[in-house]
């Protein structure tokens, strides 16, 4: 019996070290999947646009693949990675009286939100890609490849829309209390950590 007790006393458990490494990683990038996806779709669309001529002779399949990637990117950045990485979200809604409003919500404290690294990843990805697509717009315009121009225009539109929406969110817009008449028909409960506003 004594031996068993000695054995248990001598054993050192290294849980502390493992937790440290993991918590260090989590302190840098708490949401690795969201960060990866944020960049993956955008970069994949750009890379596919650049190399698709080598792989496939069919314009249609390239077009569809790039449009699908651009749409997945638009949806995921607008609805998922924005709120996970930086706690911002923007959308449009139509009131009961038919008015169209562009609204946003912003998290005040970043308790559950991302860290600085994630914010940098988010904004870097958000800004660089529309710039690259605008470059593609000019190259395809001047090389007179008109059917690629349609694709590039779609890409520029989608990426610029997200960039514009998030920049307006960040700039704060016009705040208003959640019980005002803007919000008729949609219950937005006042939460102390979220700001609602008009873009």
């Amino acid at each position, binding site marked *: 019996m004594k031996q068993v007790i000695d054995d248990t006393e001598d054993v050192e458990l290294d849980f502390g070290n493992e937790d440290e490494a993991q918590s260090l990683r989590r302190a840098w990038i708490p949401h690795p999947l969201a960060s990866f996806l944020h960049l993956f779709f955008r970069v994949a669309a750009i890379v596919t646009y650049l190399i698709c001529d080598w792989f496939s*002779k*069919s*314009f*249609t399949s390239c*077009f*569809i693949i790039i*449009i699908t990637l651009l*749409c997945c990117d638009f*949806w995921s950045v607008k*609805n*998922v990675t924005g*709120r996970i990485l930086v*706690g911002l*979200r923007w959308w*449009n*809604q*139509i009131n009961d009286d*038919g008015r*169209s409003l562009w609204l946003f*919500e912003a*998290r005040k404290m970043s308790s*559950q939100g991302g860290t600085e690294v994630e914010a940098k990843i988010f904004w870097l990805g958000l800004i660089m890609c529309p710039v690259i697509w605008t470059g593609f717009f000019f190259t395809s315009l001047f090389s007179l490849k*008109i*059917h690629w121009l*349609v*694709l590039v225009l779609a890409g520029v539109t989608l990426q610029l829309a997200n960039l514009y929406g998030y920049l307006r969110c960040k700039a704060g817009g016009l705040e208003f209390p959640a019980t005002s008449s803007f919000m008729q028909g*949609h*219950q*937005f*409960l006042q*939460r102390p950590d*979220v700001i609602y506003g008009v873009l």
Partner: protein
Amino acid sequence: MAEVDDSRKPMFAGLSDVSISADIPVEGEINVPVGTPSQDDEYSTLDEPVKDTILRDLTAVGKKFVHVMYPKKSSALLRDWDLWGPLLLCVTLALMLQGNSVDSKEEGGPQFAEVFVIIWFGSVIITLNSKLLGGTISFFQSLCVLGYCIMPLTVAMVVCRLVLLGGSGTVSFIIRLVVVTASFSWSTFASTAFLVDSQPPNRKALVVYPVFLFYFVIGWMVLTFSPSA
């Protein structure tokens, strides 16, 4: 503290003749449990799980397709607009209108992009037209309605391709003509049912006419499609 005394008065009414020195301090706490309302968990969509977001958007798109099938006066198509349905329909229609010339890269290219340009550019033009005529509908709502109402013509395209598998004689042409005419009328009727309410009354014909033209052009592309065998 005054509330404490008030609430205790009825309970201890029988003891009213008992004299208690007024100097005894009554201390204590009353904790009224504030029930967190169930709505607290919804409606900041900042924290909702991703699956909820996906499901919400998918059901919205599905509902709109159903509304196009049965165009009653409902506000779902207009209130929560989205452009995913039009994109899907546009891609499907463009793919089907491509013909069997997948092997020759020059043929496939312009036709595919042409359909895209016609549909989206046409929708934008119609929307601008209706806004210039004084309509109250917003830009994206109008794009949403016009895009979703392409669905009958997409169905007609599928039917036409199936009919063409059986041969391309006069009979198949008549069948296709009937199908395309029916679906074109359905598209025009469905979209005007949604769009026309937002227009001033003496301008309704001016708004319906471009919509008619738009679906006519798409119907024409569907009808004159012939696979280059």
